């Protein structure tokens, strides 16, 4: 079973998207852990390690994505768990999405994305991992 940590980093309280995607992942048969709000990158990585997840999905609507995604990526590597897929979504301008994906962050989804697109992405990534 695919284990996903849905995380809300930073001070932003907008959790409608995080809760919707957490419910949709659960309905798709994933094992879902939701961190709750106002998490630091350290808290998120420690939860990811403790819960032994395959995927960390972060929701960022605060504009702080250029700080938060690379920081979590760095801490995952430091913890020796960079096999975990770091993906997410939120209000992230296109050029920032491109820059973050360039740095090795997984796909980032914007407003209006159907939950099925994120589910399929995670499933495909997981299947590719299993077969490699």
């Amino acid at each position: 079973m695919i284990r996903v940590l849905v995380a809300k980093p930073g001070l932003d309280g907008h959790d409608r998207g995080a809760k919707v995607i957490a419910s949709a992942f659960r309905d798709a048969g994933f094992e879902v852990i939701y961190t709750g709000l106002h998490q630091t990158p350290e808290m998120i990585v420690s939860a990811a390690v403790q819960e032994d997840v395959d995927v960390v999905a972060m929701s960022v609507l605060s504009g702080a994505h250029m700080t938060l995604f690379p920081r979590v990526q760095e801490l995952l590597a430091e913890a020796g768990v960079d096999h975990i897929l770091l993906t997410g979504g939120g209000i992230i301008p296109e050029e920032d999405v491109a820059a973050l994906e360039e740095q090795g962050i997984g796909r980032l989804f914007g407003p209006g994305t159907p939950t099925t697109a994120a589910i399929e992405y995670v499933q495909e990534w997981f299947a590719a991992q299993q077969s490699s």
Partner: protein
Amino acid sequence: MSTIEKDVLKRGELEGLVEERDREIAALKARLADWEEAYDGTPKRESLFTTVSGREVRPLYTELDRVGDEDDGLGFPGAFPFTRGPYSTMYRTRLWTMRQFAGFATAEETNERYKYLLEHGQTGLSVAFDFPTLMGYDADHARSLGEVGVCGVAISSLADMERLFDGIPLDQVSVSMTINGPAIILFCFYVAAAEQQGVDVGVLRGTVQNDILKEYQAQHAWVFPPEPALRCIVDMFEWCSENTPKYNPISISGYHIREAGATAAEELAFTLRNGFEYVERGIARGLDVDAFAPRLSFFFDVHNDFFEEIAKLRAARRIWARGMKEKYGAKNPDSWRLRTHCQTAGVTLTAQQPENNIVRVAYQAMAAALGGTQSLHTNSMDETLSLPTEKAVRIALRTQQILAYESGVANTIDPLAGSYYVEALTDELERDALALFEEIDAMGGVVPGIEQGWFQQEIAGSAMRQQREVESGDRVVVGVNHFGEGSGKLEIDTLKIDPDIEKRQVAKMAAMRAERDDDRVHDTLDALREACRTEENVVPRILDCARAYCTLYEIRAAMEDVFGAYKEPVFF
């Protein structure tokens, strides 16, 4: 003729009238039945025919929907129960206040944007704070990293507040501040900034959002647990009623509840029930309800469903008026009168084909005006992409001006009154809200409902239902699940926040800390901590801290020493 004979005659006349009315109703029913036959025999479009909140809408409403509604829930504008508007002359005397919410980067940049908006005909200011400020952190706090000045303006002390309003006379411009968890602290920075300008604080006009209940339910920018947080709010009611009588110490907000996913009826019910909770807390403190209730103000979302939103605003006024008069015994009509700000629904904006948002916003703005709002913020078309550019903000403001000056909606008061559909919807929403009040009361009230996660789960459940409708394609979102254009390339400019702002703000704070009188900082913080432990009103103590240039986080931390911090119940 004897009195008895006269009464018999009168009764005869009345019976005649009743019979005539019965005949009219029977005739109407017959005509409706004919129409229904024709309707049933004709093919219909594939469509949900429900509001965005999932409310069933019938194909036709008639005079029959008004039969039996003789308790006169309408009245006249400016008179109980205020369904037709809080004021008797409404937009004939004064148009709604066009108040665009704005704030980004540092106090200096936002100050320039305010001056720009005032020059372009905006009539009030509305401050958007960044996330660190909303959560009570200073710009130089570790938790603020990457978020300073990004989603709003960073205000960490009185020094920033002085810069924010530099050259803007606070005795002349009304200012709304969207802040909740640490609202009492930012309010004191604002009062202290007015003092610095030499303004008599008694003339200050404006509003601080200060609605903590909906933070626990929906928006999530909290600091303290519910009980001490509510105590601070009542302290504000008390202090403001004595010192700033024209200032609204709270804006009871449905906006965030709706944006988080609630239906129109849930937004209406949760907001008003929160409002009544504040009233109960004020009364429990021993305050005279008529001393503080006239300054309670509201803030609603205006979503896509045109008529449901209009009906929601009309129902809100009626429920509030009846509750305040009949349940809480308020005697001053100003305590019954619900005054509200509205904002178009951010959640309806689409990242795809963003120019379409201009049209969505215009319809929503029209619903707000037809619903009788006192002030309005219209969203900018690019807000799903970034903070709005100057051009996008200007179009949003012009949308309101076209509505106010060209469309004619401001010419007559409550023009939809008497519409079979709008009146039926107004009554339905009122009934739904009262039923939700009963559910909340059965849980023991608002705070137990929050602690059990009931509000949060209701809202998340409604959000999920709406998401499913959109994903199945049943709920059409133009440009997203229907009428898409494929390419996905955006052709509009977005606003970039300079990443150096954080460094500049941190440097300014270091300079401010070096200049201030440290003894005064410690003394005022100690006095505040002491006041938190007693039943003393904390506003004068926080004002002393503000004047001593204590920072936001220092004040928050002193209060937290006594009050503790809020821990959310986590679930999804």
